[in-house]
């Protein structure tokens, strides 16, 4: 059952080949068998999943079911789930039981999905490897000594290991796309403002966006469609109708103009990754796409710009964690200042504290112009580069990450080494564009991802292009050995 696509699950449920309860039970059995080794889930919610499955079976019997009714789901532990621990991979929120549901959670509950549990992540979404989680790293199902990528590593690994068919995730600098690439699955981050951030714990408010992780573009399309839409409770939510992503999948891509930035293919890119990307582009050409070279002149400045903007916004967002109203409070504080300092210093891990420090510095008097204001100006230039490119191409493509999954502990000595993982992905968040990663083969036995960037609100086109590629290739159907 764990190999079935969402479409096959929909068919099977309606034909009564199996019930939602049986489907959920099979997922929970896989979680039981594999989570100890992989550490994908921080919290498992079997009672909730089965309760929702029973309700889904009733809806299915009454003919009152939608496309996702009865389908199991995993939530990245950054989405507030009422009555269930929402930890953000941090000691700071280890004791936090969310008193409300995120908008995304509400929508997917209403669609009839069944919550299996909360997935592991880099602490407060800050990282590219899921190693900074208070709950320990998640292991890449393709090689247990390697990282799954991050920050949505738990979701990506869970999908790759077939613990469930669909998972929510978030992306601020690449945190959906890079783990999708490292785990050989499909992940999509939509346009900024497409998915409500209400109840999605904030890291960097002008960059954060929720999205979908699945084994195929087709599966992801169902999830993203259900997650998307205007929400009054998110003041950055965009008032615009949601395209019917599943209906757009089968459109012909003959004539699709794909631009490949020359800045991406420099000496920092692993040659095996570069080869798989070029082979994938050749497949697109076989489907009728037209490939051309483009330039994104400010692309090399995406990471420095991002690592000013994101820490700055994080230092502001994380100032709410003070031990007063919720979350971790240090024991026996001597005074209020001691309570603030020790609660935060004991509650947060090293990378979070580093980014808060950087952010505080770049926003402080005397440095604001040189760093934060400068970064905001470069942000505009980076965004303009994309807009100029989209005058001539429909989609921009390249590698998602400069290498394949690295070993646990390999990049934790020097923070900047880890930051360089984000070279291709951060520009997208700065510009607010939609982008996806799809598996396009292997290098040294590890998955390689192709990065597809679209213009604003072109999620349907991205999923369509990815789906057409997945019709003539089967990288997305590969399964890690030893996980069965």
């Amino acid at each position, binding site marked *: 059952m764990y190999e079935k696509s969402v479409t096959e699950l929909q068919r099977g449920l309606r034909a009564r080949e199996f019930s939602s309860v049986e489907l959920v039970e099979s997922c929970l059995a896989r979680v039981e068998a594999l989570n100890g080794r992989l550490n994908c889930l921080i919290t498992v919610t079997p009672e909730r999943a089965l309760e929702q499955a029973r309700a889904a079976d009733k809806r299915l019997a009454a003919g009152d079911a939608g496309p996702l009714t009865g389908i199991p789901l995993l939530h990245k532990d950054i989405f507030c789930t009422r009555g269930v621990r929402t930890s953000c991979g941090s000691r700071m929120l280890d004791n936090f039981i969310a*008193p409300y549901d995120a908008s995304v959670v509400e929508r997917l509950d209403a669609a009839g999905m069944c919550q299996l549990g909360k997935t592991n992540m880099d602490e407060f979404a800050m990282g590219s490897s899921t190693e900074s989680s208070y709950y320990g790293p998640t292991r890449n199902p393709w090689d247990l000594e390697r990282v799954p990528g991050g920050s949505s590593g738990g979701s990506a690994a869970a999908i790759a290991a077939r613990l469930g068919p669909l998972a929510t995730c978030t992306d601020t600098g690449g945190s959906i796309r890079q783990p999708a690439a490292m785990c050989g699955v499909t992940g999509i981050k939509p346009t900024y403002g497409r998915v409500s951030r209400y109840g999605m714990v904030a890291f960097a408010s002008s960059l954060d966006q929720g999205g979908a992780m699945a084994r195929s573009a087709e599966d992801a399309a169902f999830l993203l469609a259900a997650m998307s839409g205007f929400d009054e409770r998110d*003041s950055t939510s965009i008032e615009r109708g949601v395209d019917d992503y599943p209906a757009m999948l089968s459109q012909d891509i003959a004539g699709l103009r794909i631009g490949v930035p020359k800045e991406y293919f420099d000496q920092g890119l692993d040659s095996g990754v570069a080869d798989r990307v070029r082979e994938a582009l050749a497949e697109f050409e076989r489907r009728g796409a037209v490939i051309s070279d483009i330039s994104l002149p400010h692309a090399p400045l995406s990471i420095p710009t991002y690592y000013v903007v994101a820490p700055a916004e994080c230092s502001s967002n994380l100032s709410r964690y003070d031990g007063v109203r919720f979350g971790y409070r240090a024991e026996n504080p001597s005074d209020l200042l001691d309570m*603030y300092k020790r609660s935060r210093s004991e509650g947060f891990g090293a990378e979070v504290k580093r980014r808060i420090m950087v952010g505080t510095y770049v926003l402080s008097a005397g440095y604001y112009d040189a760093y934060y204001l400068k970064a905001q*100006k470069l*942000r505009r230039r980076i965004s303009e580069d994309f807009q100029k490119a989209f005058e001539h191409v429909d989609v921009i493509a390249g590698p998602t990450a400069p290498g394949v999954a690295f070993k646990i502990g390999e990049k934790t000595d020097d*923070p900047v080494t880890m930051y360089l993982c984000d070279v291709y992905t951060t520009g997208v968040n700065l510009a607010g564009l939609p982008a996806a990663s799809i598996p396009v083969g292997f290098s040294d036995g590890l998955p390689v991802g192709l990065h597809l960037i679209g213009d*604003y609100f072109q999620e349907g086109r991205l999923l369509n292009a990815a789906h057409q590629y997945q019709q003539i290739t089967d990288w997305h159907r590969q399964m890690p050995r030893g996980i069965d």
Partner: protein
Amino acid sequence: MSIDADEIARIAHLARLEIGDEALARTTEELANILAFVGRMDAVDTADVTPMAHPLDQNQRLREDHITETDRRDAFQAGAPAVENGLYLVPKVLD
């Protein structure tokens, strides 16, 4: 851009973080490296560029000034470290 221990202490205080003596040297070095790395931004002249705060250049959406929130204080305080009579308790502030 060099950064010294005093600066680190100042920033840590602003951020309400404690950097212990053992961690001070490493923190100073790490921050100096990160700041040197982001200093690459200086390579490009951006004198006449308008800063971009929102990726789609949208402004803050406004709404009518009507009360829409309900009182859920009990639910929110259920997970609080220390409460009394609807108030959050903290170490004494005033002597």
